[in-house]
């Protein structure tokens, strides 16, 4: 009897402590900075991306702080940004620990998410528990946003919309693209890109004539190519990561599989694609979150937010500051910073709930593109992918036309 009583009391104490811990709201009035926490992959398999993200976020903080900070109406003053970050070693377990440390020990106010859907999923389980707002800049899986999480929003195009722009482009081509072949890696992210392809194929009227899934970490994809060679297709759309995508591309050239148009998801959007494949990469299209083109023009958008410059100018600014140019990763985290800033300014508050509510009405343009979320899920619905194509060693944007640097080479000249 006594034991049971003890257990109940202990449980009550536990529940109360959790409740009060969660309910303690920081006192905003005496704040002298807005603390933004980040878990970045500075080592491990995503190490290349972590560095660019750190630089992108520092550039944002520097830009904000040079103007005196973000104006918070409720407090009647401007507050500067203070970035706090740890290396998550590209590991889920470490990410969870680091996010918790940022919230509990460093007492950060908001989080900018880690790299990749897996790490974001892990991080969100922590930020949700503590009721912290997390802005995702590098997690594109739709699943993140369909878990009923309240304080998660994304600034990048989700995986099911990866091929949307490319397929809109395909729908306008002459000679017509009618039959598509889909080749996809067996992993949740690429399968969700595949689901997107199928969805847009229905909307835009493409016929799926071939579909094949290959296993993770493939060593040979020739069996698939033998089959696709027999399929009467106009375009091959692949959903792959870099290594398997490059293997697929190399074997497509080795087996002389001909198609009029070919895409490999986001993999070709890096210079490494050409370095790895050489001229076999010619005419490959990519689906890219962002490319450093001399557009869009800030003067044409009344809802422009953030630095008034084109993507190209941003890239030059980035390079001048850090000595290296950026890709979409350094830009996306800047956009995430802008979204947070927008939320704080529009709500006039540092309160997470008020900011989250304000973000439902967000709709702005920047050098990264449009930013607008679905109020229900927090998923990005405004941002559109751009379509670059490799043309003789240069990656040039061919779609949308407002950003295009060159004309799409279509159909691909037959190689001999």
């Amino acid at each position, binding site marked *: 009897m006594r034991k049971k009583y003890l257990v109940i009391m202990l449980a009550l104490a536990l529940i109360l402590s959790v409740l009060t811990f969660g309910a303690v709201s920081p006192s905003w009035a005496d704040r002298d900075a807005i603390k933004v926490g980040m878990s970045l992959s500075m*080592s*491990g*398999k*995503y*190490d*290349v991306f972590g560095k660019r993200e750190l630089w992108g976020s520092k550039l944002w903080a520097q830009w904000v702080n040079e103007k005196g900070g973000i104006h918070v109406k409720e407090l009647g003053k401007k507050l500067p940004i203070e970035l706090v970050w740890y290396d998550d070693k*590209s590991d889920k377990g470490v990410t969870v620990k680091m996010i918790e440390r940022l919230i509990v020990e460093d007492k950060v106010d908001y989080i900018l998410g880690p790299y990749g859907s897996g790490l974001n999923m892990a991080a969100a389980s922590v930020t949700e528990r503590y009721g912290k707002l997390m802005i995702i800049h590098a997690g594109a899986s739709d699943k993140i946003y369909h878990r009923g999480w309240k304080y998660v929003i994304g600034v990048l195009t989700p995986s099911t919309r990866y091929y949307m722009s490319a397929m809109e482009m395909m729908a306008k081509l002459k000679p017509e693209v009618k039959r598509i072949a889909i080749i996809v890696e*067996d992993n949740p992210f690429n399968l969700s890109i595949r689901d997107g392809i199928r969805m847009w194929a229905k909307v835009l009227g493409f016929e799926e004539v071939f579909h*094949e*899934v*290959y*296993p993770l*970490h493939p*060593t*040979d*994809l*020739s*069996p*698939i190519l*033998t*089959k696709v060679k*027999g399929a009467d297709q106009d375009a091959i759309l692949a959903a792959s990561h*870099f*290594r398997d995508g*490059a*293997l697929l591309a*190399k*074997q497509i*050239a*080795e*087996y*002389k599989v001909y198609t009029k148009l070919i895409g490999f998801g986001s993999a070709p959007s890096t210079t*490494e694609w*050409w*370095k*790895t*494949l*050489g*001229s*076999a990469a010619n005419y490959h299209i990519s689906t890219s979150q962002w490319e450093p083109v001399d557009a869009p023009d800030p003067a044409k958008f009344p809802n422009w937010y953030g630095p008034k410059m084109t993507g190209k100018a941003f890239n030059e600014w980035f390079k001048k500051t850090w000595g290296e140019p950026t890709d979409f990763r350094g830009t996306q985290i800047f956009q995430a910073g802008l979204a947070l800033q927008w939320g704080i300014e529009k709500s006039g508050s540092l309160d997470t709930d008020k900011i989250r509510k304000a973000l439902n009405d967000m709709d702005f343009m920047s050098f990264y593109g449009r930013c607008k979320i679905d109020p229900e899920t927090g998923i990005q619905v405004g941002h559109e992918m751009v379509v670059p194509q490799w043309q003789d060693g240069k990656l040039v944007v061919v779609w949308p036309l407002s950003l295009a640097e060159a004309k799409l080479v279509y159909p691909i000249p037959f190689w001999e």
Partner: protein
Amino acid sequence: MIGLREILQIVINGLLIGGVYGLAALGLSLIWGVMKVVNLAHGAFIMLGAYVSYWAFNLLGLHPLVSMALGLVIGLGVGILIYRSVIDRIIASASNDFEMEMMTLLFTFAVSIILYGAALNVWGADIRGIPIVMPPLSVVGIEIPTSRLATFVVAVICGVILQQFLKRTYLGKAIRAVMQSRDVSMLSGINPAKIFAISFSIGVGYAMVAGVLISLVSPVTPFLGYFYLLKCFTVVALGGLGNPIGAFAAGLILGLAESATTLFASFALSPAVAFILLIVILIVRPTGLFGAVRER
């Protein structure tokens, strides 16, 4: 839907990749067979070989078919170094076979972690590749990718050389003697420690050669070894220990099985087919298809 030509193409695809599997597994099979050491660092050595090839291509402009020799020499050196510095001592100090097997297993596991970690830190997670795409040979409408064919031919040559070395040379016979019985070979004046050193370095050398060849057909990353290590274990279990021809034949069988998966199911199932094959063989013939029944 699928005609004779497609089936023939699928068979050729399977044989070509199977040759790579066979070559990759040769070194593992030798070390396992001779020393009873399960070399978990085998995949890491394959990865190192691929990087040797990548850098030889980029810094010296060497074609992988040339830098193979470089890979072999470096592999032999690294093998001797690792054997002499640690494995030798483990074998000498272990009080029984089980202890020796466990200690070397842990040690090679540690070596693999160190090598993967070092590769990740030194070269980063970037995926690299050697941008050589050779036009395929077309024979009656069947495409034979030149680079894979070259890999296959080299793999066959390597397998034959090892087989002949084991069969004909004094050293090779000594290796086989140690494989059969360490104690009896010592009675014939063979020094097992020396044989172990030679076998281990040949094993590592062959792993690096395989890595060099793989770089010709596949992108290079620090994780490359993981993908091949699993295949190698399957091949060794299929082919039997210390038997180059067996390992090679088993590689071909695995390649064919994976390739043929597309005939009746999704290619995504090909790893499952490989493992089902492995389980069946282990039940029906636990010594492997080509392994002799050995006394313990």
